[in-house]
């Protein structure tokens, strides 16, 4: 390993620099491959033949299967928000602002981010595992030698399905969360329903909704992109698939948070 291009071992003091150089090249290569992967998928998404059957299947896989977890987590997130914000606002006598506080937190930030993270854990990891197993059992090679593009069958439908289902799942998460906040704030803690929804209407505008929408749309690309990429380039055997699945969930979650911060700072 520790050899120069001419084949001679490098002097010991230079070896860390060589290792750093090798690591840098690996990182740049991986980033290039990662970017090219999405580029190819985007190009194929506009070139027929379109695989509508696969798209419906992926929408079911990502969207419908995640519905229960999105409703459950959305509801409890709204309830926790309702309780904590009510207790905080009551110190200042401003409980009337519970509705807008819950709604803005959910619509602008927590809805898109938490929903994307939960869907990553549920559907994203399954996507990586499924494609990883297809790779190690030569099913992807089988598609290739049938002169069929694995990218068109496995990646494009997942990304398009993510684009469609993530905003819908986020909307459901937001609505259920707002009703979770209502349950705690109005039904348990005694705030008036008119105040809860009335103030919400006064403070939440289209700009907030569009911010959440753009975030969920971008997460709908990021999660299938990362998860299918990790499945496609997973290592050998069961261990390789397991490692790829873990990496997909961790990397997706990190990219979601970084991208959320970036969008939060550029969107109104």
């Amino acid at each position: 390993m520790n050899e120069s291009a001419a084949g001679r071992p490098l002097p010991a003091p230079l070896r860390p620099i060589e290792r750093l150089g090798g690591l840098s090249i690996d990182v740049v290569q991986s980033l290039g491959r990662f970017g090219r992967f999405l580029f190819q998928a985007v190009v194929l998404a506009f070139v027929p033949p379109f695989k509508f059957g696969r798209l419906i299947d992926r929408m079911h896989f990502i969207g419908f299967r995640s519905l229960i977890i999105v409703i459950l987590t959305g509801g409890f997130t709204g309830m926790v928000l309702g309780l904590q914000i009510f207790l905080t606002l009551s110190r200042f006598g401003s409980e009337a602002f519970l509705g807008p506080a819950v709604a803005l937190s959910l619509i602008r930030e927590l809805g898109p981010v938490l929903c994307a993270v939960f869907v990553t854990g549920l559907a994203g990891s399954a996507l990586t595992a499924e494609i990883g197993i297809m790779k190690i059992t030569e099913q992807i090679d089988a598609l290739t030698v049938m002169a069929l593009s694995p990218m068109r069958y496995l990646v494009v439908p997942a990304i398009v399905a993510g684009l469609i289902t993530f905003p819908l799942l986020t909307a459901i998460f937001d609505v259920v969360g707002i009703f979770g906040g209502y349950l705690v704030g109005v039904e348990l803690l005694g705030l008036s329903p008119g105040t809860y929804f009335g103030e919400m209407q006064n403070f939440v505008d289209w700009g907030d909704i569009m911010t959440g929408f753009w975030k969920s749309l971008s997460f709908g690309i990021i999660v299938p992109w990362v998860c299918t990429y990790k499945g496609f380039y997973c290592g050998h055997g069961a261990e390789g698939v397991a490692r790829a699945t873990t990496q997909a969930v961790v990397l997706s979650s990190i990219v979601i948070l970084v991208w959320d911060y970036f969008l939060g700072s550029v969107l109104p």
Partner: protein
Amino acid sequence: MIRVENLHKSFGGQPVLRGVNLAIATGEIMVIIGRSGGGKSVLLKHLLRLLRPDSGRVAVDGVDITRLRGAELDRIRSRYGVVFQGGALFDSMTVFDNVAFPLREKSRYSDQEIRQRVEEKLQQVGLSRMGDKNPAEISGGMRKRVAIARALVTEPEIVFFDEPTTGLDPILVNTIHHLITELHRTFRFTAVMVSHEIPEIFQIGHRVAMLHNGVIVETGPPEAVQSSSNPVVQQFIRGEVESTAVPQDRGVTVGGRA
């Protein structure tokens, strides 16, 4: 005609193919033998153009496929049928859908015609009642036969078999070999088979090539290979243990990881 010329391939600096030369005539059954880790699967992946060589060429009817991309490569692959080692059946589909898949995706046949062709192929491999099963519900031997049916349903000109009988009992090994011989007699495809099954493959192969240490060390009709004076060939055929003949690159797999 498939012609492999001076093919070299290394993974992570470890040479696996060191100048393979091989000619496969149209319509013949060519069996490639050799020790595990000797590069047979790597060679097969080059014939399928799943891998690109470091140097050398693979020509199919005079066309160098190592340089092809996109539609031109797809045209060559449309002439292929492949039986993978583990079958590579799609888990999410039934046996019938697996066999029908290439026709649904690549042909203009009606649903009725596809059904007819798939049922015919399943019958030829002795699985006419198994169409509704999932791959996980059938035995290893049946999975191999489904894979053969899927590879042949498009009536390809060239069929590749990657160790089609590995892991099967002797009766099933003979059944699969008999099936391949029968199907070849009917459809006259060119067959390239990677196998370890000594001596059975000498009965079905028209020619045999032995790959050792990344080069073809013997090629010829089965009788000629069996009577070869090459000690490496004799050692392999007899299954003798001899430390000097252990390949240096044993354990190297595609991707360069042992």
